[in-house]
């Protein structure tokens, strides 16, 4: 047997500094190895646990790779039609104003087919949280071009790279919805390094806390890899993301306390 390097002696409850939150079920997530969806799920689940709102939270899963999010979050969950999670969540929140309601959506779901629902839920200032995982591609269906695909970036429906002249520009939907008076907190994060994960978690926490205070809509974009769609290993994908996605989708707060940053 190989050496184990284990220190069973320190594995005591007092010394425990990190373990899987119970707000995630034990189901193994179907995401590809290294996919940011898993990390983002974890963070949101941890926030729900830490706020003690597991029984008061209702989540809305989209159509996209995270369609099965309902199998992983151990809170009551609804699976919405493609793009319609903000409309679904609007009803949930209006009918249960004291519950915590979130949608979890991909870039195709939120910024292509769901554009109208996104903009209008934001504009009405629904008092809920939107978690928006922007991986610049349609992961679920096999890597087609998304509204957020970068110029020149190859996908299965832009095999020679996104051609802006015919396919349009990548859509910075997050900057757009930040313009709406209904949004209270709008931020862009990532989850590929420990530091970014910790920041992203704070942002998600803020977004959920805002609901308690009836502040309006909080919107957390997570720029994330789709290593399968990008056809890179997870580690290379994260590097590519830093080099290519972040210059176009810069990380940081965009709107805080209802005021545009800067």
């Amino acid at each position, binding site marked *: 047997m190989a050496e184990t390097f284990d220190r069973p002696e320190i594995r005591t409850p007092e010394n425990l500094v990190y373990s899987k939150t119970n707000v995630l079920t034990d189901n193994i997530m*179907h995401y*590809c*190895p290294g996919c940011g969806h898993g990390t983002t799920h974890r963070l949101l689940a941890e926030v729900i646990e830490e706020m003690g709102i597991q029984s008061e939270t209702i989540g809305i899963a989209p159509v996209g*790779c995270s369609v099965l999010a309902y199998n992983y979050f151990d809170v009551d969950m609804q699976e919405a039609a493609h793009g319609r999670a903000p409309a679904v969540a609007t009803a949930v929140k209006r009918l249960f104003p004291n519950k915590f309601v979130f949608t979890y959506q991909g870039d195709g779901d939120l910024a292509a087919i769901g554009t109208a629902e996104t903009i209008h839920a934001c504009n009405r200032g629904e008092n809920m949280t939107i978690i928006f995982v922007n991986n610049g591609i349609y992961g679920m269906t096999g890597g087609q071009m998304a509204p957020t695909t970068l110029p020149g970036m190859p996908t299965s429906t832009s095999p020679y790279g996104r051609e802006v002249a015919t396919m349009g520009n990548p859509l910075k939907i997050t900057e757009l919805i930040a313009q709406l008076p209904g949004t209270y907190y709008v931020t862009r994060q990532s989850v590929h390094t420990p530091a970014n994960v910790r920041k992203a978690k704070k942002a998600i926490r803020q977004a959920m806390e805002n609901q308690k205070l009836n502040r309006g809509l909080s919107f957390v974009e997570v720029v994330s890899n789709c290593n399968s769609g990008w056809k890179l290993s997870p580690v290379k994908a994260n590097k590519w993301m830093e080099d290519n996605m972040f210059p176009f989708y810069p990380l940081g707060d965009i709107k805080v306390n209802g005021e545009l940053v800067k």
Partner: protein
Amino acid sequence: MTEEIIIAGFGGQGVLSMGKILAYSGIMQDQEVSWMPSYGPEMRGGTANVTVILSDERISSPVLNAFDTAIILNQQSMDKFEKTIKPGGTLLYDPNGITHHPTRKDIKIYRIQAAEASAAMGNTKTFNMIVLGAFLKIKPIVLMENVEKGLKKSLPVRHHKLIPMNMEAITKGAEIVEEVA
């Protein structure tokens, strides 16, 4: 002649393209062919499989639940497809990663150490061609020249330079396949 084959393994093992080359080879010798993959998210991470039929007659159903041959490349697929082989049919599998070996007595069983061999060849991309070679050794349903033609048809021109390597892998597979039962 009709040969109904299921090829099943992990996504990424080249299951689908192996089936495609087989189908193209059939076309090269004027047969009817059909190739029906599993599709969708189940392919991601999970298993992938493809049903390939080569026949001298019009193929009715492209979807089958009993096969002349099953080519099985991981445990999940073994669990799922061993039982679907017709009595007297053939099972070819790579034992790497297989924890429950096949138990049926009414079929012919062959093993191919393809993962090992492809690693030895220094190119894990040849894995599926080694398996194909093994299959064609057991069931020479298509002529080698038609396989080569099929490869040409199924690969984009820019990859034609890889054909010799693939043919080599096929030969290798034919050499190292072993009969188990």
